[in-house]
């Protein structure tokens, strides 16, 4: 038991000692997740959502450019970066939406296979 406590103490101290290394891809992921959650949030009004999406669009655009120019990804997270690059449509929402001259919301919904008719017939479930 004592050994277990000692081991957990060491692990805890190691965890606090190591700084959280968030790379540019992590930051983009976080911002994208927040944008999508706001996009799907039924508790906010349409103007509120629109306002949030506008500011999120600017941030996403900048973060996507940061990821594209981040040379450290090749050594720090090559597998994750490759996966993200290969899923261009969903990783770089702002740039991919601009290609199709669409808003981010519309582009994301189409990419994941949600059409307007699908959404209209959808029911709220538990």
């Amino acid at each position, binding site marked *: 038991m004592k050994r277990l406590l000692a081991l957990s103490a060491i692990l805890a101290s190691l965890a606090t000692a190591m700084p959280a290394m968030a790379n540019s891809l992590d930051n983009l992921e976080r911002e994208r997740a927040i944008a999508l959650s706001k996009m799907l949030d039924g508790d906010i009004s349409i103007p509120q959502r629109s306002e949030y999406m506008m500011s999120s669009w600017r941030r996403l*655009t*900048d973060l996507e*450019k940061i990821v594209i120019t981040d040379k450290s990804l090749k050594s720090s997270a090559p597998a994750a*970066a*490759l996966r993200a690059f290969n899923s261009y449509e969903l990783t770089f929402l702002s*740039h991919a939406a601009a*290609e199709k*001259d669409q808003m981010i919301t519309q582009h994301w919904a189409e990419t994941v296979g949600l059409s307007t008719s699908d959404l209209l017939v959808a029911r709220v479930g538990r």
Partner: protein
Amino acid sequence: MKKILKVSMALSMLATTSLICLPAAANEIGWSPTISEKILILPPKHLETAIEQDFDRSALATELGSLEQTINGQVSFLTQLQSDLDLYHGQEQLEARHQLISGKRDYIQLMGEQIQLKKKRLVVKLDIYNRLLRQSKLSAYENSQSAQFDEVHAAVADRAANVDSSLRDDLFTSTMMPETEFAQAYAENQSAISQLVEAIESHPSNHIGGSIDGEPMTREEELRLSMQDIQSELAILAMEEDVLGHMAKLVSLDAQAFADDLNEFQYGIDGFEPKKYDSPANNIQLFINRS
């Protein structure tokens, strides 16, 4: 005269046997390259120069240089002696011929040593290129992984760059807000990078590398071509050895002719004929006729 005869016989023996012993002297001197695989980053021409400079610092290069000087001196001596040969007569001419044959034998021996040293240099050089080729293959394998990443990344960057301008316009007109500081700096740097890349593409030194049928050569192909050059030099050295072999045969024949002439000089110069002694059969008439 007997002394000359003995010398000539010894000479003909030496002329035929000396070539067999040729490599012995050349084995002592060597070239241990001090250059590292880092020279792989150099362009082919400079890579070759770096290897030659390394060789130039070796004991082998020093020995080859001094041997070359000795050979040049020997050639001058032989040329002079051959042109003056007709000026000598009798015993003096024999002595001059003796020196000529001896000089030719020394020349062949020196050339044989030089060929061995040249071979040694080329074999070490070939080893260096083999080592560089192995290193190059290893690097190519390691680079293939990162090349795949670079390819995907470049495709993503191109795709994003294509919509960058329209995206900036859309953002400005839709949000009615000025660009972020990052976006402005990004656009400025992107423009600068584009101009620099264009300048790099059009720079003459960017197109200096060799090519096969218009296609740029890889580092491995460049190294293989250099190795082919070394192997062709080795083949030429093998032919030069054949030439020396034929020269040695001629010297051997010269020595034999010289020995014959020497015998002639010693035993046939005064028209000496062996004495003939009388036979009893020649005087038989003295005994048959009775008077």
